[in-house]
């Protein structure tokens, strides 16, 4: 339970931060709305990720799933930052 909790807490946090940054870069809305959406979406993503990571049978499979999602999300972050820098 403890290793799975660590994955859920920190993995969920990193994933939510990463996805929130992507949302911030993608959404074509005013900055104050972006901040509010980012904050509320951030916590919701964090908890959704925790539920997903806790649903695995073992801490190892949970950590693997976490790693895959995180890599994908960070890759999207890089792409978006790279695209923004071109503009």
């Amino acid at each position: 339970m403890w290793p799975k909790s660590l994955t859920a807490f920190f993995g969920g946090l990193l994933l939510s931060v990463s996805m929130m940054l992507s949302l911030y870069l993608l959404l074509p809305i005013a900055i104050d709305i972006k901040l509010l959406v980012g904050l509320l979406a951030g916590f919701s993503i964090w908890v959704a990720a925790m539920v997903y990571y806790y649903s695995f049978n073992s801490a190892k499979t949970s950590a693997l799933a976490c790693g895959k999602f995180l890599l994908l999300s960070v890759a999207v972050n890089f792409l978006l930052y790279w695209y923004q820098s071109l503009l």
Partner: protein
Amino acid sequence: MNTQPMYATTSRNPRSQWVKNLTESHSWIGVIISPLLFVIFWAGAVTLFYEEVKQWAIVPQFPVAIEQTKMPLQQIVEDKLAQHDFDYEEHLMVQMPSEHDPYYKVFLDLVREEGMEDEHGEVVSLLIDPNTGASVANRDDFFLGDFIYRLHYDLNLPGGTYLIGIISLFFFFALVSGVFIHAKKLFKHFFLYRNDKNRRDQLLDLHNVVGVMTLPFTLMYALSGLVFNLAIVYQIAFVVFIYQGDQDTLFKDAGFTLFDEPRIEQSIDMSNAYTIIEQARQQPDFYLRNVIFYNYGDESAIIQLRGNDLANFSQKDEFFYRVNTGELLNKTDIENYNVFRKGREIIATLHFGDFAGVDVRILYFILSVAICAMIVIGNMLWLDKRTLQQNVSPRNISIVRGLTLGGCGGLIVATTVAFFVERVLPAGMQARADYLIASFILTLAMAIVLSYSISNKRRYLTQMIMLSCLVLTATIAADWYLFASEIIQLTRQGFYGIVGVEIGMLLMIISGLYIVRKLSHLPSQQSLSLQPVS
């Protein structure tokens, strides 16, 4: 925390296994966060009546005749500045009287001692009679309301805000996982309570019924708790990745106006500030909550007025004026607002339930107490299951049992003792607030210790409820013995909070006696899971 033996054989159905894993996590996370979650909800339930509790604690000690002529605010503030060593580099805040609270509250940052210029200096918080301008007490002397409020949001501990934030996060997880676990029966068994079944089914039904029916409320609390206590996480992320370290710009984008002008060191008369304040107080549908003075008495002086727009839902207005010229520098109102800030204010309004009358707060209180019951029932289910399965060490079971009974029950006893102490301690007593805190902590600690040493748990629970009822009765008696004429006079003047708190205590006594009666009629096989199984 070994949870493997329970599901040693993997289920063939992946969905079933998925739900089993979530159930396991839900029950373990639930039991781990339960003591602090109970503190949050119990303290939050009492805090819903923060203004009433403050009124009950303070106003009978220093009754204010509302029909008397009030002293001008300028005279009050400048008298206090003359009496205290105010640091003019810092701001000065005045909280205005309200329908619940007839006093001005003035907060003064004192000049820091030599060599300690970098540290935050002492802040004096004065409670001031609006008629005479006399400082009747230090605001923190009557600490009960603030103590319980702080217990709710930071446990009165350094770093407690983040701890509460983390508990809110796991509570949010417990809610969402609970929905997945219960999803199939969410609507079918919406009102199901099997009174005729065994004790475990009854407890499970109660846990589920309360959980489902309070779901919108609990989801709102979990999310708003996270926004208040753990937003720092995303604030850091935004500052680092989006704002390249520029925190001031982030605050500006989030709608928080900052004026940080240095003093010019040319004195001016501040009368203009008080004219602006008076004009704001006269505005219809506007309640001026507080005023903050920056660079008081200097040509660069600015005042910030903050208040509630009473005509619109959850609208907090804010105005900045340059005192010397009367120029409006910035305003936030129903036509000029920042969505982030407004959204945060709406979340706060929903969280505190202060968007309507006292009836909404009573409803919030009932829901909060129901959640407290749900937390305890969740622990009882956990204890029943683990005791039967014997897959958790007796030591861990004993710890959970003690914390559930002594921690949750003890918290209620400690709250009643704190109310009693707040009432009977003399107003001018030195370190009054410290005695209140000590009485609370001692009672709570004693309740927890006794819960481990007393073997008959049901009798101990009954005794704790009876003690709470007794202390509340003594508090009401002390109220009338010490302040009978003041309470009658204040109620006639429209300060209904004092009698309101007494009615609340009376209802708690009646509920307590009813529970004791029910407990004494429980058959022996319906023994509490809090009772150790031999």
